[in-house]
């Protein structure tokens, strides 16, 4: 390690309220920085601790990103003891007291990932190097999440992934410094399989349209495995670029492919567009092989359902969480989110909120911000009350294990947000797999110096 590496990265000014245009950087730190030694990257020295929220505000997943940001803001409020406390009173751990984290007030900075790995890493670096963020959260694209997770490992900053559903995030690309609360594509397949079998029978031919990146690939793989286990055939798998907008040229070939189910491994606006366009092409009213043609959207959120409108009716998918859940934690979160923003939270918002709380809780329980200790506090941690029932943060791959909800688009929504209903639940035991099911290596605990 050279002294160079410590760099000039500790900027505290932005969040101290001094911040004016010039104050972004008016600081004599360059001369004083070497004076204090720091035991790990961005160790908080003042009375605040800064978290970095890196979400897509543009691109195919911008809707999700905006909702994640709302949830992060809410979580920060609750951690600082403002508002009604949301899920904190219902959380099985009582380490959080509304007194910030370890007595330090929580501040935050945000960045736009643009749904691109490059831009996401840039903005994460800015938050770590310039703004001194101690933890990064966000996602909404597994490509982005994996890229940022890698960066965080290098810089020794904990990454609490928000919405990322690829198997790889905690599979082959798992990292010691990365944690995922959200479920994954494999679990979606396990959850969705039996439901599809019940509804559509065992003699089906499926046509896959797949977003061409890590999430799409793993979801396609998981869905093929789940449907072929039912006895279905796979007619064709076609990769589509992320953010394609117009999917008509990919949908037309479905018409004469001999398939009778279309599986859309798309998310966000891509999912909305491909689903509505598929419906425009009359796929839902179609007969194929003597059966009614069906469309499946394996990962679905209420934001997508809102975007797709009528097209979503009757379509099956899975969800990490849905706001009409009736457990106390979910109700409290929905109420406090609804009161603040006038709309119910999406699953993206939920996982972002929960991840922020879990990080804060782990730091409290560890009694330090020192990342290896926080990591150990999260590993193999069993908790409850955060909306998904009893949940395990498995130490071997940093994946959460909890129930998976199978949802269906409502035929007659009672209001503009009541679009999905939970039709079945795959139990945590069912969706749990062996840690080495996906090969991967977490890497060292030792903190790198950013």
């Amino acid at each position, binding site marked *: 390690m050279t002294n160079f590496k410590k760099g000039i990265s500790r900027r505290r000014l932005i969040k101290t309220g001094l911040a004016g245009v010039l104050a972004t950087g008016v600081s004599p730190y360059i001369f004083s920085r070497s004076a204090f030694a720091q035991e790990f990257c961005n160790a908080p020295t003042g009375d605040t601790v800064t978290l970095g929220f890196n979400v897509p505000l543009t691109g195919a997943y911008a809707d999700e990103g905006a909702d994640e940001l709302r949830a992060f803001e809410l979580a920060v409020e609750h951690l600082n003891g403002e508002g009604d406390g949301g899920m904190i009173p219902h959380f099985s751990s009582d380490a959080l007291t509304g007194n910030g984290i370890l007595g330090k007030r929580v501040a935050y900075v945000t960045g736009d990932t643009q749904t691109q790995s490059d831009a996401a890493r840039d903005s994460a670096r800015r938050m770590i190097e310039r703004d001194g963020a101690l933890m990064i959260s966000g996602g909404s694209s597994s490509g982005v999440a994996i890229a940022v997770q890698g960066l965080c490992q290098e810089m020794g900053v904990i990454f609490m992934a928000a919405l990322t559903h690829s198997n790889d995030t905690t599979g082959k690309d798992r990292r010691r410094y990365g944690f995922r609360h959200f479920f994954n594509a494999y679990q979606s397949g396990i959850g969705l399989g039996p439901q599809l079998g019940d509804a559509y029978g065992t003699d089906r031919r499926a046509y896959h349209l797949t977003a061409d990146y890590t999430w799409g690939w793993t979801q396609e793989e998981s869905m093929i495995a789940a449907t072929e286990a039912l006895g279905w055939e796979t007619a064709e798998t076609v990769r589509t670029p992320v953010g394609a907008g117009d999917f008509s040229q990919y949908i037309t070939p479905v018409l004469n492919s001999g398939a009778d189910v279309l599986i859309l491994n798309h998310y966000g606006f891509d999912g909305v567009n491909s689903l509505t366009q598929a419906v425009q092409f009359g796929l839902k009213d179609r007969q194929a092989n003597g059966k009614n043609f069906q469309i499946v959207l394996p990962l679905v959120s209420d934001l997508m359902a809102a975007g797709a409108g009528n097209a979503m009716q009757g379509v099956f998918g899975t969800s990490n969480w849905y706001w009409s859940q009736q457990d106390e934690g979910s109700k409290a979160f929905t109420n406090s989110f*609804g009161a603040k923003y006038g709309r119910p939270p999406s699953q993206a918002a939920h996982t972002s909120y929960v991840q922020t709380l879990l990080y804060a809780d782990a730091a409290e329980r560890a009694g330090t911000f020192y990342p290896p200790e926080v990591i150990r506090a999260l590993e193999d941690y069993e908790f409850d009350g955060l909306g998904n029932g009893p949940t395990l943060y498995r130490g071997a791959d940093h994946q959460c294990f909890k129930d998976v909800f199978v949802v269906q688009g409502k035929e007659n929504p009672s209001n503009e947000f009541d679009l999905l209903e939970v039709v079945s639940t795959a139990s945590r035991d069912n969706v749990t797999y062996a840690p080495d099911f996906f090969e991967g290596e977490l890497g060292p605990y030792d903190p790198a110096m950013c």
Partner: protein
Amino acid sequence: MEAIFAQLLNGLDKGGAYALIALGLTLVFGTLGVVNFAHGALFMLGAFCAVAFRELITYEIVTTDPEQLSPWGSPLEIRTPIAQQYLGDWGAVIIDYSVPLSILLAIPVMLIIGIVMERGLIKHFYNRPHAEQILVTFGLAIVLQELVKTFFGPNPIPQPMPSTFRGAADVGSWLGLTPGAVTYPWWRLVYFLFSIGILSAVFAFLRFTTFGMVVRAGMADRETVRLLGIDIDRRFTLMFGLAAVVAGLAGVMYTPLLPPNYHLGMEFLVLSFVVVVVGGMGSLPGAVAAGFLLGILQSFASMTAIKNLIPGIDQIIIYLLAVVILLVRPRGLMGRRGVMES
């Protein structure tokens, strides 16, 4: 066979959009000699005319009822759309047909935008190098799209098509094929016919009116037209407005097919430039032919059989064709001598 036919159909609507954008681009280029990188932004602005129109007519009076709570804990909102309140059933019909009706808004708005753009900025660049024209219009395109982002946000805003046109037409059965073998969404059919209509109107205008004759003459030889006493600049301003209207209408009607976002123009711009170059700089029939050709080729390239033959061809077909055409026929399919060659 049916698959091929289905892909052919599928190329038509996109081809129509390309043709309309390329037509306006060529008009501006041919008459004013300006390479307009902001032309895609005009398409996008047209699309947002539809968005604005819909927001206008679906404007709701929101009152909250503190007595009741919504399921997510906020006070219950009671929304009353103004159009429906005052116009009753007619309001509902207007809302249903908001996309085609927004043409009425788009025509004057786009005409004004076009004229202001030409008078305010473009006209100062007639005698500047093409590189500078590209740059200033590129900058203008950024400004326009960012303004739209400021007002409408970064996310796509879906525009529903009129309910009559939802679903797909069984085109196959019209042609005696197996029913259901070739279906094509009604709105895409509408879009194709609409683009044919606009294209015919523009060509008829150019062919049969004096104004059109002057414009055609101006595209071929600006100097001579001026020497015959015609104040061509004034007409060109109007021409620019017309090109903006064509691009805008193409955008309005495209909204149900692709929810518009502020970035839409840039996505179409690159493609339409390729279309113009393939068609031949300054050739109107070339632009139209190339528009449909590329739309259809792009659609064919997505066929599984072809993709298996040449992996990735669906991603690059347009650019590949542009390169080949430029190398083999530097003036494009129907380009003339002397355009963009000085």
